[in-house]
């Protein structure tokens, strides 16, 4: 393939990538997005492969085959493991970028100083730092999400943590600067290796002080690091396709993390840099207050009488894998002519769009998944709000209690419904560690138990009772 043809292929691939992300704007066109993405990637791979300089075909085939062998099983993970998979994937992306950067450095080093211009060297240093930080950072994040034993879930803090981290980063940047100025000095290769090691260590230390539950935001930020390292690789290889694809990825990570921070009412910088510090544990409630528990029979009677039901799912539904039972409940209720909608909070669960995928998996039509801002005005006219494993996203304290970590976060107005049922296993608080006012309300009734079991029982009760109706 001539240079011109390769560039043309890259140009078309660039266009297809943009179209791919454009088509993600609606579920109707989204599957086309995957097609466009696959086509673009195939084009890019083939155009690169069939360049005259590329001759070791067997090597390429073996590596690609290995990629398929690992990639296919990785795509079959249960949906609850998607955050971990994404993190692992970022680690792989960071690894690839870092390795290519290192390979290019040692190659050009062998060819003399004319190759290692300041421009290229800057790009290589950026690529290597970003790549290897992403590698270990994402591995740590994946470990925390998978709740691997020897990776502490809780934020780990120790004296001089911030100072140490900043020192480490400064050291890496200084070495990088030295390398840009003297890329071919005798000490340069050794310094390059040290740079890599520092990046690897920094990745670990960056994530250690952040709690497992903050990982989704961290993953999104690592996503944009992975994109930026692809951009840097584009600068190293003088390849515009890499720059564009990397920038698209980088913006995506950045925007998703901004959206998450907003919905949690935390500033972007607070998560990025405040993460160095220790997460402030909320004070436990002072007085013992009373919950009203309700039986399955009672709850199903109330549900049967309702004409509008809003189901508010949260992290607990994901953990319990209760989505299929929830679908059965939805079917039972709609069969009776009851209008059932789902209220989706932007940060319900542990990753953006978490509830949507789970409920879509259970074949609930997405037109019944309503965003918080749209459903809140209807809550006062709702007969029953059924909270399934959600906690922080329905906590009214967010509206007024300045001392709580969730103060100012927009919530779903479950407390405005005529009656509230809440399914959870215990009296423990949610992710933010604070008591939930909603559960002490007069009109709130608790259904204690695992979400899957409780919803299953409700369905059994309703379907058994439906004959007698």
């Amino acid at each position: 393939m001539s240079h011109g043809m390769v560039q043309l292929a890259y140009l078309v691939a660039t266009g297809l990538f943009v179209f791919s992300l454009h088509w993600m704007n609606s579920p109707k066109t989204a599957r086309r997005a995957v097609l466009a993405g696959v086509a673009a990637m195939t084009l890019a791979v083939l155009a690169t492969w069939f360049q005259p300089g590329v001759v070791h075909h067997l090597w390429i085939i073996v590596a690609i085959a290995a990629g398929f062998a690992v990639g296919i099983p990785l795509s079959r993970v249960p949906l609850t493991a998607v955050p971990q998979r994404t993190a692992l994937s970022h680690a792989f992306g960071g690894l690839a970028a870092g390795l290519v950067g290192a390979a290019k450095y040692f190659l050009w080093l062998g060819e003399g100083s004319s190759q290692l211009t300041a421009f290229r060297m800057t790009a290589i240093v950026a690529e290597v730092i970003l790549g290897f930080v992403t590698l270990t950072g994402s591995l740590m994040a994946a470990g925390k999400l998978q709740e691997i034993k020897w990776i502490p879930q809780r934020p780990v803090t120790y004296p001089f943590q911030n100072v140490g981290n900043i020192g480490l980063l400064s050291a890496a940047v200084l070495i990088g600067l030295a390398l840009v100025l003297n890329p071919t000095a005798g000490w340069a290769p050794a310094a390059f290796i040290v740079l890599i090691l520092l990046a690897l260590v920094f990745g670990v230390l960056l994530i250690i002080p952040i709690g497992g539950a903050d990982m989704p935001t961290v993953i999104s930020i690592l996503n944009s690091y992975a994109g930026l390292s692809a951009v840097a690789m584009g600068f190293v290889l003088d390849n515009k396709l890499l720059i564009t694809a990397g920038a698209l990825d980088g913006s995506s990570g950045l925007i998703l993390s901004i959206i998450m921070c907003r919905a949690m009412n935390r500033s972007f910088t607070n998560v990025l840099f405040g993460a160095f510090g220790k997460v402030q544990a909320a004070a436990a409630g002072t007085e013992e207050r009373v919950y009203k528990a309700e039986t399955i029979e009672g709850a199903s009677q109330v549900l049967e009488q309702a004409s509008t039901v809003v189901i508010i799912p949260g992290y607990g539904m994901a953990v319990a894998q209760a989505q299929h039972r929830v679908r059965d409940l939805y079917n039972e209720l709609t069969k009776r002519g009851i209008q059932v909608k789902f209220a989706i909070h932007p940060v319900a669960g542990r990753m953006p769009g978490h509830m949507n995928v789970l409920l879509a998996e259970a074949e609930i039509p997405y037109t019944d998944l309503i965003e918080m801002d749209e459903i809140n005005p209807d809550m006062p006219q709702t007969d029953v709000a059924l909270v399934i494993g959600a906690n922080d996203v329905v906590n009214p304290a967010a509206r007024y209690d300045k001392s709580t970590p969730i103060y100012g976060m927009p919530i779903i107005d479950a407390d405005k419904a005529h009656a509230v049922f809440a399914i959870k296993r215990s009296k423990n608080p949610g992710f933010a560690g604070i008591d939930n006012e909603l559960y002490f309300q007069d009109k709130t009734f608790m259904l204690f138990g695992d979400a899957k079991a409780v919803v299953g029982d409700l369905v059994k009760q309703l379907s058994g009772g439906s004959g007698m109706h």
Partner: protein
Amino acid sequence: MTQRSVALLLGTALLWAAVAAWPAAVGASPAPGSNAPASAAETEASGAAGHGQETSDSWSMVFVLLLSTFIGIGVIARVSRLLHTPLMSITNAISAIAVVGSIIVTGTDFPVHIRIIGAIALFASMTNIVSGFLITDRMLKMFKQTRGEAKS
């Protein structure tokens, strides 16, 4: 997206652009070296990316970066909230475009240790491409608009 975050993102893009282009900006013998036929010939000999036919200057790349960032912000901000999880996995697959660099490092007649590094990178990127697109498609298949569609 509010104006504020757009401004924030533009700022980030410009900052990054400035970092990337500083050697060019201060005139510290940057890309011209790589444009000279001598080094182009070397590149050809080493069989690297550009195959020495044409190389672009650093400023072009900075422009491409700025424009791509704009496109990224515009396009991503309009992705349906419903699809944020699949969005994360498709961009994940797209960022594996690093495969391009990996193929060159693996397949060109470089010393064996370099090619081994390349092969690992190629394996890693390929894993991301395959698993990223497959899982995205798997998730998207689940989104059904109507009950009838959902049932069938």
